């Protein structure tokens, strides 16, 4: 039903599933940063990427995420990669020139594309791990925690978090509704796939207006339901879902920190293979 571009939560009780979502967001940011650091040489860069990739594969194995889902995520990127390659080939004129037929290609163009591709791959893989092992609702709560400081400048973070969690709750309901209305209008002779621009506009209007109307209806009823159950956005309320920093996090935190420190030191002291 719901195919988010960043992957879908997979039910399991792996080590990664049990980690505190706040920690997972922190680790994601740290590891992504390490990917974008510039190491002493190209060889070092690619070695680090290779190391990260192996780590990601191990994590995916632990979290029971299928490699296939990573491929599925990369598919839409294929076009982008080809596009970047062509741009690079045209623009970059440094590095070793290679002659293929009548064309002169510079090695840097290929390496630049390869960099982009690998960084993108690693980034997507890391976020796939996060979204596959964390429920959207828990992610919301974790984000709310990070946004907590904004409360001091009077931004109602808790209300924003409530809105996001309600939106997440109602996405499947609204998708179902959309499908239902499309079918009802198709039965009245609306064609959602073919037709002139004018016909298409009509088709879309016949979907949007009922959907809009029923969404408003829904939100009014939802507001009533929340009100009668004592919800007051400005009142104090307790929390059922609490992020807990547990022993697993305590083990994982130093690992991530050491990993990042190593990466940072590698970059800072320009450590290379020739040392």
């Amino acid at each position, binding site marked *: *039903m719901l195919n988010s571009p960043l992957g879908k939560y997979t039910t399991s009780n792996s080590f990664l599933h049990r980690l505190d979502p706040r920690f997972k967001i922190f680790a994601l940011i740290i590891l992504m940063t390490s990917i974008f650091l510039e190491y002493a040489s190209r060889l070092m860069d690619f070695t680090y990427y290779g190391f990260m990739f192996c780590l990601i594969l191990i994590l995916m194995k632990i979290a029971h995420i299928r490699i296939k889902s990573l491929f599925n995520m990369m598919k839409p990127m294929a076009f982008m990669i080809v596009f970047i390659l062509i741009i690079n080939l045209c623009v970059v004129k440094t590095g070793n020139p290679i002659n293929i037929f009548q064309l002169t290609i510079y090695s840097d163009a290929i390496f630049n594309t390869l960099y982009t591709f690998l960084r993108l791959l690693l980034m997507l893989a890391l976020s796939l791990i996060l979204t596959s092992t964390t*429920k*959207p*609702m828990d992610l919301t709560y974790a984000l709310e925690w990070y946004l907590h400081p904004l409360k001091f400048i009077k931004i109602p973070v808790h209300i924003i978090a409530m809105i996001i*969690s*309600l939106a*997440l*709750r109602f996405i*499947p*309901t609204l998708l*179902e509704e959309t499908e239902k209305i499309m079918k009802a209008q198709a039965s009245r002779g609306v064609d959602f796939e073919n037709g002139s621009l004018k016909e298409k506009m009509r088709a879309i209007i016949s979907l949007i207006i009922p959907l809009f109307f029923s969404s408003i*209806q*829904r939100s009014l*009823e*939802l507001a*009533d*339901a*929340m*009100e*009668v*159950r*004592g*919800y*007051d956005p400005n*009142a*104090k*309320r*307790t*929390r*059922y*879902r*609490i992020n807990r920093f547990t022993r697993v996090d305590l083990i994982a935190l130093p690992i991530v920190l050491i990993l990042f420190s190593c990466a940072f030191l590698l970059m800072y002291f320009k450590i290379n293979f020739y040392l």
Partner: protein
Amino acid sequence: MPNVIEVKNLSYCYDNDEKLILDNISFHIQKGEYVTFIGCNGSGKSTLMKILMGLIEIKKGNIYINNLLLNERNLLEIRKHIGIVFQNPDNQFIGATVKDDIAFGLENMCIKQKDMDPLIEEYAAKVGMIEYLDKEPSSLSGGQKQRVAIADALSMNLDIILLDEATAMLDPKGREEIVSLTHKMQKENENLTILNVTHHMEEAFLSDRIIVLNKGKIVLEGKPKDVFAKGDFLKSIGLDLPFSLKMENALKEAGFLNLLGEK
């Protein structure tokens, strides 16, 4: 038995409309009663329920709930006693899972987090949803969602529960589940008062008392037997009799009294 709800001379109309939705209504409900409101579409039943919940402001008439006058100042106190289950099972499911949905009301009541799980389990068990605690609404049937909505209401320690056509969107199995559950709850807790709004005459037949609304007025009130004795009148205002009574009447009229022995 003391009155838990007293309505005196209540009238209501929409702002820009002259037609009265509710026209000078007075009634009272006793503690522990199961009262059903019937009336055809547009008779004002649902509006009445929303008014009792304080979701619609009234201009004429007085409403007392547990001897408190329903007004803006008393609203929060009153809502600690009265809750409602609406018609559409989807639009009142707030949490991501059954657990979270029951927790939503507890959070609003500022219950400590460590006390929540036992409470959630207790109320989920009362409505027979203990095995579904981690399920998402999309994987539940309409009847199951309404059972969760009832657990929500119970978890808030209410003594009056309004069912606003809570069974209208359910299949017969779901309806049966909800009807028998609400009756069971009322039997187990003698302080629990239930007000039910329905189109199902069979459902109304099971209640302690029936109040019939037509065009915003109370036109008939009494025990189910007495109300349904006035079949012709009910038909004239768009209602009907439960099947069993229709059959009994037909058999009596045709002289087949011997078929009415049992039941």
